[in-house]
């Protein structure tokens, strides 16, 4: 049953990854990645990593990717305009990817082609993970905790509204009937031109000419 499960879920993972690549709207890429993660969780189970499998679901699919979906919704990220600024990426992207894949796959096939994987060949108990985590890997664990705390603090700071700190009045929420996406963005006070599509150049600030200079000009 193991090969069948591997090919089914490996296939799902592969399909999800390819779909991630070809989809142009970020929301579909994100959902494809969720699918990949789910499939990978099953592969982890096949490899005897129960804890990691469910942590994959809880943390990756249930928390990180939700965050992605949230941000995509918040920024109303849509299909990006088809710019082709990077000639390098266009020219060497596929060859580089293919070369890397050939190198890695060739090496793996040559080196580990004979090592078998069986269901139940090696089962990692949750308790064993806990033991290792709090004895052998205690320092990395604590360091990671601190890193995480710092990261969360930084995220809050970065995402905080600038206007509120400067005490400016919050933007009034207007409801435009008929253009829901626009209304949503305004309700969240995200600039409407952040919604993909054509990029509107920010209006140039009017040069505040000193009054006396203008008066002189008038005089002439």
């Amino acid at each position, binding site marked *: 049953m193991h090969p069948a499960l591997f090919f089914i879920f490996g296939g799902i993972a592969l399909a999800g990854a390819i779909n991630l690549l070809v989809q142009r709207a970020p929301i579909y890429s994100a959902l494809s990645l969720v699918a990949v993660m789910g499939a990978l969780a099953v592969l982890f189970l096949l490899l005897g990593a129960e804890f990691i499998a469910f942590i994959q679901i809880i943390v990756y699919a249930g928390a990180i990717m939700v965050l992605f979906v949230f941000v995509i919704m918040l920024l109303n990220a849509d299909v990006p305009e088809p710019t082709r600024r*990077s000639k390098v990426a266009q020219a*060497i992207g596929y060859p*580089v*990817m293919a070369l*890397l894949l050939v190198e890695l796959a060739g090496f793996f096939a040559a080196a580990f082609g004979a090592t078998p994987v069986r269901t139940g060949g090696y089962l990692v108990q949750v308790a064993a993970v806990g033991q290792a985590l709090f004895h052998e890997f205690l320092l990395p664990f604590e360091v990671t905790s601190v890193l995480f705390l710092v990261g969360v603090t930084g995220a809050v700071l970065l995402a905080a509204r600038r206007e509120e700190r400067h005490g400016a009045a919050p933007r009034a929420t207007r409801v435009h009937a008929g253009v829901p996406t626009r209304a949503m963005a305004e309700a969240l006070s995200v600039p409407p031109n952040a919604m993909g599509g054509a990029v509107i150049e920010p209006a140039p600030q009017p040069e505040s000419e000193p009054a006396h200079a203008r008066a002189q000009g008038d005089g002439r």
Partner: protein
Amino acid sequence: MHPNLHLWLIPFLCFLGFACNLLLGRTWSQKTAGWVGVLFPAAAFVDALWVVSQWSRITVPYLETHSPWIAAGPLTIPYGFQLDQLSLVMMLIVTGVGLLIHVYSLGYMAHEGGFYRFFAYLNMFMFFMLLLVLAGNYLLMFIGWEGVGFASYVLIGFFFRKDSASAAGMKAFITNRIGDFGFLIGLFFIFDHFHSFDYTTVFAQVRQMPVEHAWSGLLTVIGLLLFVGATGKSAQIPLYVWLPDAMEGPTPVSALIHAATMVTAGVYMVCRSAAIYDRAPLALSVVLATGALTAIFAASIGILQRDIKKVLAYSTVSQLGYMFMACGAMAYGAGIFHLMTHAFFKGLLFLGAGSVIHAMSGEQDMFRIQALAPGGLRRYVPITFWTFLIATCAISGIPGFSGFFSKDKILYEVLSGQHPNAFWWAVGTIAALMTSFYMFRALFVTFLAGPETAALSHPTGQEPRAVEAHSVDAGFTAGHAEHQAAHPPAHEAAHPHESPASMTVPLIILGILAAFGGYIGLGDRFENFLAPVFNTGVVLPTHPAASELSVSLISISVAVVGLLLAWFYYVKNRQAAENLKHSLAGLYRLVFNKYWIDELYGLVFTRPLAAFSRVVLWRIVDVGMIDGTVNGIATFARGVGSGLRRQESGNIRSYASWVGLGAVVVVLYVLVVGVR
């Protein structure tokens, strides 16, 4: 069974005080900072007393080794501490006198800025000094050695807004560096030959070696190199020049660091290395000669100083010379004994001087003090006067006071100890005469009423710098300026006043110690106590050239003669002093200008060095070679950059592509070549 003494705790307590004050002191009130600064040394002192109470329960030397500090190949240096009779005495002196001076500082520094900083630095000094005396190996001792040097540097330059203070700090630091260089090379020799820095290991091997009589002998070389370090730290010829300038620091600092403790580190180190010196008589003779020459040389300069702190500074140099004389005569016990009594009376003298300066709102010139305090300062500051008198008697060797016992012992050992030398004994005795003279001169001029004529207080001819600067401490910062504002200015109507209790109590305690501290050494008890440390396996016959009594009589008479001379010239007949000065004008100018040693050093070392630096190092090496290389590289880099910047498109995806390409190449390389 050994009780665990936790020796590390004693320096660590001081370190805690340092850390607390340095990190948090800025936010504390002056009172809190001060009490924190005093509390931790007090705790260290109590801990030291507890260690003393455990003395009977331990076997000496008591060794305490914590985790290794450095472990590199054959070099293993633990955090090791050692307690024996020698470090016990040093530990008690450092914590005890240190504590008193901390308390004193509470009063003395009350009007200064940077109060917390001052106590933080003092605590730091205590930490390093205790590390120095409690260390169980040379390298840890060296850390303390360098640390006290640094503490001394920051404390001398405490009033860093004043150019002379920061210059003096730098001078002290650089002069010490020269000595430390010798010390370091000595340490390298030690490690090269004994493969260890531990006292016990090194001395166990030294004990197997014979006595050397050649200048090139290993122990002689080590001894001389270590002594170079000691001359720097303990201000001996030729590296003594920093100590008088160090008086730029606050007076408690002068008392603690530049009189009682740090400057004696060199003596302690030589005594600690007794096993090495005992087997290197040539090195010992150098120590003896240097000590004796320093003693008389500094004493002679001290005679004509006008600044009360400068007098005490040269006196310190001179007394340190005595200690080295003792070491040179293999009478280490006597040296340490004098070190201890010196800590008492010289600490007291400095604190007394500080009290006087405090009373005179910053005035340090003795003759001006005399002129400004009508009827003699004695009437205004009785406690200071009496304690100062005790200390003066002690240092001059008036019988019954502590200095008499220790100095007499040294002179006796030099004359008839294991390395008898009548010539150096004579030099030391003359230095003692000078000591008595200049100390009583200082006492009389400072505290007794002077002649009403102002002319006498301003000697004609050479107008000394010290008078122009009119004091080193005077108005040192805004603090004393406020102080002067609070009281009427010193020049119009001086209102000298006795110092607060936080200053007088340490004075009294030190006064008691200075008066009676010498009785510890009666009947060689002190030296017998220390003897196990200095029992190095080398015993030379003594040469009782004279009975101890006769030597003592000479010492006593010398001290009294000095006293009487001072009284004659500065109390009885001031005109005689003036006459004498004019008749010996040349000598007077030579001595008054401290033999132009600073100028000589400037001419011989500093100027050529500066010129060399300017012409060769700056013009050729720096501008030509280093700058040329750097600029050349920069030009090259600019050329390459202007070519490569085409590649920096600013596009994230392009960058990522380059990274990907790089990864492909790296993986390919690893696969083809393999990982080595």
